[in-house]
């Protein structure tokens, strides 16, 4: 029997306070995901909001087969990818400088002076397709099969994008 937390169950019943508590618990995790996938702080804030609104709308379909955080995480990935698919204009790439600025509020984790900021900026500067696969595989730990399913691409394409992302990062490192 799925073990739904009380807060999730209350939110499913339309309790907005319970949903706010879920937001407080997961907002940082979802924002970090959106920020890395989009490479842009303003867009990441929009997608984070979209993800929580979508979660509210679909909450009743959550049956507790996985942890709520896992469900929400997957939903947020889909929100970001679908939004980008739907846009007619090509995604504006951010410069490493603005990418670094976006991550200035990063919290948690051991300090890694200089390196972390450089790494976040480098990830933000990757081309969109390569960045998405890199973030989902190397940062978030999804498999190529899962990424292929989420992005609507072949497994081979996912592997190729990861190879491309790593090559570009390596080149940035060598500059």
């Amino acid at each position: 029997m799925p073990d739904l937390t009380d807060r999730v169950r209350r939110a499913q019943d339309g309790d907005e306070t319970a949903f706010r508590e879920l937001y407080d618990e997961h907002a940082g995790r979802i924002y970090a995901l959106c920020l890395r996938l989009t490479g842009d702080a303003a867009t990441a804030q929009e997608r984070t909001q979209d993800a929580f609104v979508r979660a509210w709308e679909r909450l009743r379909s959550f049956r507790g087969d996985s942890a709520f955080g896992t469900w929400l995480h997957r939903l947020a990935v889909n929100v970001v990818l679908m939004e980008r698919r739907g846009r007619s204009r090509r995604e504006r790439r951010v410069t490493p400088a603005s990418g670094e600025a976006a991550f200035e509020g990063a919290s948690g984790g051991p300090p890694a002076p200089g390196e972390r900021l450089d790494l976040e900026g480098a990830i933000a500067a990757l081309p969109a397709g390569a960045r998405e696969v890199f973030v989902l595989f190397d940062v978030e730990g999804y498999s190529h099969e899962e990424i292929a399913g989420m992005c609507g691409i072949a497994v081979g394409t996912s592997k190729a994008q990861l190879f491309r992302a790593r090559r570009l990062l390596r080149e940035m490192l060598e500059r």
Partner: protein
Amino acid sequence: MNDREHEAEFARLLEETRRLPRSIEPPRDLWPAIAARIRRRPAWRRWAALAAAAAVVLIVGRRILTGSSEGWAVARVDGAPRIGRTALVGTGRLRVGQVIVTDDSSRAEVQVGLIGRVEVLPGSELRLVAARPDAHRLALARGTIYAEVTAPPRLFVVETPTATAVDLGCAYTLEVDSTGASRLRVTAGYVELVWGDRRSIVPLGAMAVTRAGAGPGTPFVEDAPGALRDALTAFDFARGGSPAARAVLRAARAEDAVTLWHLVSRVDPSLRAAVYDRLAALVPPPSGTSRDAALRLDAPTLERYWQHIRRIQWRREILKGLREIDPRTGLAR
């Protein structure tokens, strides 16, 4: 720095990647905007929609159990839709020959047997023509419907005053105005529009219009240039003839192959080679395609070319924003 040192540093970078902070506080409180958005849709409407959906499921379930095949389940979504002169309160049944009518503020949902659903948007009049396992047929006299169907091709058909939309496995929006003219926009799969011996195939990301006395116009992709659309309107509905067809050729891009493919068989025979050559220059045909056979309108040849074009169009749409697709080949650039 030598190669070995580079490798070591890159390995450290990947390791660092895996240790990136899992959580980053947003620079501002995002909750107020979220709260405003989730409150925007009144709770009663959510519950009404859920109740309507549940009622449809119950009715469909009962139909399966009883084996009844009389009409389809229908549910009120908004406002005061009617079945004939009778107000639809909650749920009901649309029987063959009956008409569901929505006013400017009403919406309803019709369960298309066991194969899909149709949203009846405001200002519409939709009649059930046939409701058998081998024939799901509606007639849209006016208004707008959104249809989603999961079934083998040609099981679901919607008649309009100026064309018939045959489902080939898809989702689409179909509008009919007061003159009977219609507009079809396909959002998944593809749809065939037929009127007499005139046939237009409209794939994902494309549209087509129909007019009284002319049937379905030539399909065009949603991002087709204005000049191409204007020329097509002249060609299809204003007897624009060869000058209009030539204007289409001038405006066409590789992305407009869906349009050019249809024109091959629609233009005056004297212009057919020019249309085919323009199409072949923009989107080279699959290997083994004979120009002569295409100009003779050999059905298998044209069909093979069409499948090639449809695949490119599908990839272009489905990967929009994710991959830059070469409209000449369908391959990622």
